[in-house]
């Protein structure tokens, strides 16, 4: 019994050490964002700051424009989520619930996109946003972020809606609901778990997105998102490490907190991606 306890203790000691090393980079950055420049250069690797300075955050928020980047990130992320939710829930409902002319062809077209790397469509997307006259606005970034087929989300919705018992729908039809009202009043309220997964997954992807906002804000620095703003700040002055650490903390703490609160939806969604 004691041997078993000992080996359990050792296992946990090992796992705790491993996890500590695993997330050390983030702990280090958050700690560095509270340090003074002097302390950073003297004791850069320690994790507990001597005193909790807020100067770095104030500097990053005001002079580093992170206040602006933060609000850009929020606007882009929320707008993208709303659009993606709308286009994938409706599409998933039609595909999962009905068989209709052209359905197979549509699924085939959607399926192709899995094999086409989006990264290489970046030049046409850049031109398209430019031709639409959306180059100097956040709506250009939002459109591009919401673009694409979102095959995973469509399939999640479709397989969920396919499982709803027919009786519910028939009851709705008897009550006089048409196609649209059955969707809004019966199907959509039932699909809350899928909506949760889509919201949190899209939140994480859009918040962290880099290439699209980078390319679309090259000539308009005031439209940068946090991910791009931090990268640009680093290019301009690499000496201000504590300021950069504060900017990085502003960028990742919200996403980590949201993930910790809603991780079930995210992990279930990711797992759904491979199980099909």
């Amino acid at each position, binding site marked *: 019994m004691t041997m078993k306890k000992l080996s359990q203790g050792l296992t*946990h000691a090992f796992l705790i050490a491993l996890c500590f090393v695993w997330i050390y980079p983030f702990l280090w950055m958050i700690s560095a964002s509270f340090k003074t420049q002097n302390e950073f250069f003297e004791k850069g690797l320690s994790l507990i700051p001597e005193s909790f300075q807020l100067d770095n955050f104030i500097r990053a928020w005001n002079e580093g424009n992170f206040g602006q980047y933060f609000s850009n990130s929020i606007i882009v992320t929320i707008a993208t989520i709303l659009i993606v939710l709308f286009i994938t829930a409706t599409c998933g409902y039609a595909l999962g619930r009905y068989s209709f002319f052209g359905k197979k062809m549509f699924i085939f077209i959607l399926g192709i996109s899995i094999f086409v790397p989006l990264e290489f469509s970046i030049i046409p997307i850049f031109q398209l946003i430019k031709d639409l006259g959306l180059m100097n606005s956040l709506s250009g970034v939002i459109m591009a972020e919401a673009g694409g087929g979102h095959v995973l989300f469509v399939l999640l919705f479709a397989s969920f809606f396919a499982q709803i018992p027919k009786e519910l729908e028939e009851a709705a039809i008897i009550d006089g609901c048409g196609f649209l009202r059955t969707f809004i009043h019966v199907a959509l309220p039932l699909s809350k778990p899928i909506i949760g997964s889509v919201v949190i997954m899209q939140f994480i992807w859009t918040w962290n997105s880099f290439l699209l906002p980078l390319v679309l804000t090259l000539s308009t620095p005031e439209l940068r998102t946090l991910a791009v703003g931090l990268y640009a700040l680093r290019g301009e002055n690499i000496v201000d490490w504590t300021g950069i650490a504060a900017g990085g903390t502003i960028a990742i703490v919200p996403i*980590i907190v949201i993930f910790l609160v809603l991780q079930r939806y995210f992990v279930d969604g990711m797992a759904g991606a491979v199980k099909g």
Partner: protein
Amino acid sequence: MRTLSKTSTSAVSKKKISNKRRTTLWCWLFILPNLIFYAMFQGWPIIVNWYYSTLDWSGLSSDAVFVGLNNFKELMQDPYFWNAYKNSFVFMAGSVPLMLGLALIAALVFNNPNLKYASIYRTLIFIPVVTTASVVGIIMVYIWGSDGAVNYTLMQIGLLDEPVNWLSDPNLAMMTVILINIWKNLGMNMVYWIAGLQGVPRELYEAARVDGAGHFRTFFSITLPLILPVGAVILLLNVAGSLKVFDLIKTMTDGGPFYATDVVSTYIYRFAFSSEMGLPRLGYAASAGIFFAFTIMIIALIQVLVKRSLNSKKVGGQQ
């Protein structure tokens, strides 16, 4: 009487047809929003990229000149392109097998129902997945720099005599970038594997225990064969994902030092959007994109064909 019933059935069937038509119409109306976004941001780029690749064009509206296949010819003769092309595959080959193996081990450990606090460990391992790549890139430049934690630790335990600049040494940069990529994406692959493991029926494990099979025997005879189909999907996702890596490389090394970590996506970015090459060359960059997209699609196709032939062999064997 007979005529009456006839007319009423035909009325019913007419109504059915018009109902069906109405449903089809509604279905397409529901699909339309997704279709429009798909057509604009996936379909259109695929088509128009071909046209762009035949142009000598900086992207400033009216300066495009048709040059036929010249971009592709130039691409084939550019040693920097082949260097980036090779690096993309080195990055993929270095990342994928190691990452999948380690993620499977992590999944087996943290899916064990007897391990206490497993969900907390799983969450911590997963955290790098949800963090912004550009933030990770900047932290890693410091952590792996000469004053950073990696050098400090290695020197403390006596494995290094003097600090090494892992990301700015051309001989080490690629290996370092691969390690960081594995660290960043391991958690996601762990979740994929756990999803596969949870699909294995519990009764099989119990049967194996009754038959006296040990841990390793159970793993190789029961678990592994049953999670291989999921493994094939995970492999495909990772191969495609690592071949198009951009964020991490761009923010950690920007393809350097001396093009040691330059991959196709950073190569394309340099020609299309960066000012360091003078005027942008969108047509040339588009041709590089097309060439590489083809490579990825061929690899995906080979994977699908291999999987199919393996499956058909299995069926043949059972007969």
